[in-house]
């Protein structure tokens, strides 16, 4: 990553994906292939949060 100031933008994208997957998981209760794969993808999204979003949430990156 060349421009670290973009982390806020990256974080916005992570949170958007998380929001979409959370909705998909909740809406697809009767569709296991959708709900379980969404849940599994959310576990991966959590790793993006640990790598990026936490730093934003904890004010460790200057905007």
């Amino acid at each position, binding site marked *: 990553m060349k421009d670290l100031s973009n982390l806020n933008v990256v974080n916005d994208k992570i949170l958007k994906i998380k929001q979409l997957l959370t909705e998909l998981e909740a809406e697809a209760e009767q569709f296991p292939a959708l709900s379980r794969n969404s*849940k599994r993808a959310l576990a*991966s999204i*959590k790793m993006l949060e*640990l790598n*990026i979003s936490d*730093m934003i949430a*904890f004010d*460790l*990156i200057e905007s």
Partner: protein
Amino acid sequence: MNSQEYWNPVLETMPLEKLKVLQFKKFKRILNWAYTHSKFHKALYDTAGLTPDDIHSFDDIKKIPKVEKSMMREIQNKDPFPYGDALCVPLEEVSTYRQTSGTTGQPVYQPDTWQDWEWWSECWSFVLWAQGYRPKDRVFIPFGYNIFVAFWAGHYAAEKLGCEVVPGGVLDTQSRILKIQELNATAMMATPTYVLRMADIAKNKMGIDPAELSINKITCAGEPGAGIPSTKKRMEDAWGAKVYDHSGATEIGAWSYECKNQPCGMHVNEAMFLVEIEDINTGEIIEEPGRKGKMIITALDRMAQPCIRFDSKDVIEWDSEVCSCGRSFRLIKGGVIGRADDITKVKGVLLSPTAIEEVVRSIDGLGDEFEVIVDNQGDVDRIKLKVELMPEVTKLSIENTLKDQLRLKTNLGYQIEYYDYGSLPRYEVKAKRFKDLRKKHIEKECRL
């Protein structure tokens, strides 16, 4: 900064003061999670008269009670079966069962959700990337894929990095060596004991020189060997490969790693773990380099069965050196030096089995295997050291060097027994080379 050197170029080079802020905020988060989701943790903190709201600063963290392995043993085998009250998620969220090896008693059960498994492999990704694993690598993993965590997460992490993984599970050692040769594997993960065992079998039973194989890096775990210079040298010489140390545990996670610069120590992943070093006598938290103590560790993001201020009994010390790799994650000098359980007093002198290993493995005429037996005759402690002579090496040619080095490194005298090469027991995973046969093995007497 060459960001390609780091798995996470921001976290791994973050100034220490910012890392401390990150650790504190994450500590509060996991503490609050455990307090509100686990009866075990709530009872533990309530008994101490503390709630997460009482933790206002980094210094307050040491007020939080430690968790001992024995406490985890006591709560398991109860509902929610088999994990008991430390479980923080509904049982149906648990996707993976692992257990400790039971070296020090009844094994501890470890539940993980899929998110926890993602976290495990994320922690291992820091390890492997720092050691130079890249998508072009073909990684051979020769361990029995089973209930022990061992290299499972290393497997998943290597896949995440984009490497090609060859699971060398239910194969005997010779078949594994042939598979490495057949596939031109470039990297491998194993315990130091098994790395040396494989080299021995390749060379002496199969007529294959492991240094001629394509392995160029090996990640070790499970034992301190890769942090002991003479053992590391033996492995590197045998395989013609770089050997890197790593430390993790079933209840904790993959918390530290040696980077490509091989700084004679390991980086603590301070973005994912909080490591405190506690003076064994006073309980004081040691901040400065150069003082050994017991590691108290918190996994900051592990959710199903949290690991908060866990008394690991690993003996470590902070290094005063900063690694030239550019990571701000602090180094522990020489890796994990030993376990508080193993460091014991003999004839009034503290003895660490790793010090004996360092000496034995530094002498060319001795084989890789050895055994240390401590017993007593009346009130007098005795240490017997069994070593193997390499073929065509005589006892006379090495005895003085061995005795002198042992005296120098451990301040103790030994009754040394010499055996023919190949006579002592061989181990496939973790070795049991140290036996204390005295009735009282008192950890309290440890004075580091």
